[in-house]
């Protein structure tokens, strides 16, 4: 089955971010296709590489990056939600005149059209978040 995953909450406060990752990993392990993971609303905060959890806690951002590297996952951060919350890649840092960028490896910033295109191509949209 072809899935698109939508993540609506940031890391650590809600289990949403964990569940989305675990579902995605399980779907891939079962041989399903995950066309795209779309991070929306506060979910865009899963894409900052500056998170620094304590050593005995899980690395939510890092494990998304690792999963993307292993499976060629397409991790897309919603552009409008990201800019509002300070998630920037290097080119947008320059364009917006900011002094830092923080997008984690394996993620890219793009528009809502990526979510819509994804669900048109997928068999199922699975949404994590209330």
């Amino acid at each position, binding site marked *: 089955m072809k899935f698109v995953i939508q993540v609506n909450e940031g890391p650590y406060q809600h289990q949403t971010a964990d569940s989305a990752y675990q579902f995605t990993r399980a779907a891939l392990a079962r041989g399903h296709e995950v066309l795209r993971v779309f991070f929306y609303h506060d979910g865009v905060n899963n894409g900052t590489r500056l998170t620094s959890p304590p050593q005995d806690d899980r690395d939510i951002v890092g494990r998304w990056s690792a999963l993307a590297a292993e499976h060629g996952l397409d991790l897309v951060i919603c552009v409008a939600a990201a800019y509002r919350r300070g998630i920037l890649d290097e080119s947008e840092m320059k364009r917006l005149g900011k002094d830092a960028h923080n997008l984690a490896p394996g993620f890219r910033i793009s528009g809502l059209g990526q979510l*819509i295109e994804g669900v*048109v191509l997928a068999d199922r949209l699975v949404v994590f978040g209330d």
Partner: protein
Amino acid sequence: MKIKKCLYVNRRAPYGTSYALEAIDMVLIGSVFDQDISLLFIDDGLFQLKKGQDTADVEIKNHSPAYRAFEMYDVEKIYVSKEAMAARGLKRADLLVDVEQLSDNRIKELMDEHDVIFSF
């Protein structure tokens, strides 16, 4: 591109969270993709459509004029929950746009009839 029946479900009050505004953005962007779009307002989401919204005191943009523009984007199927309307003392004349009122039983069928549900 394949055309899917997309239902945007609006469940929350217009302010207090960003979901109502995000839904407007997504509907307008989604309309560009030539999908078959319907909107459904249930629970406190009904207040998104209420006339006379004034957000000056909370210093948040009043996004309600956007609902009147939906027609220009060929977004014309707007449904509301009859039960939710009654529970909130709302009548069709209180709303910014023309809506079709559906019973909650009919809403279950409406959801089944759609390929994709975007929930806000």
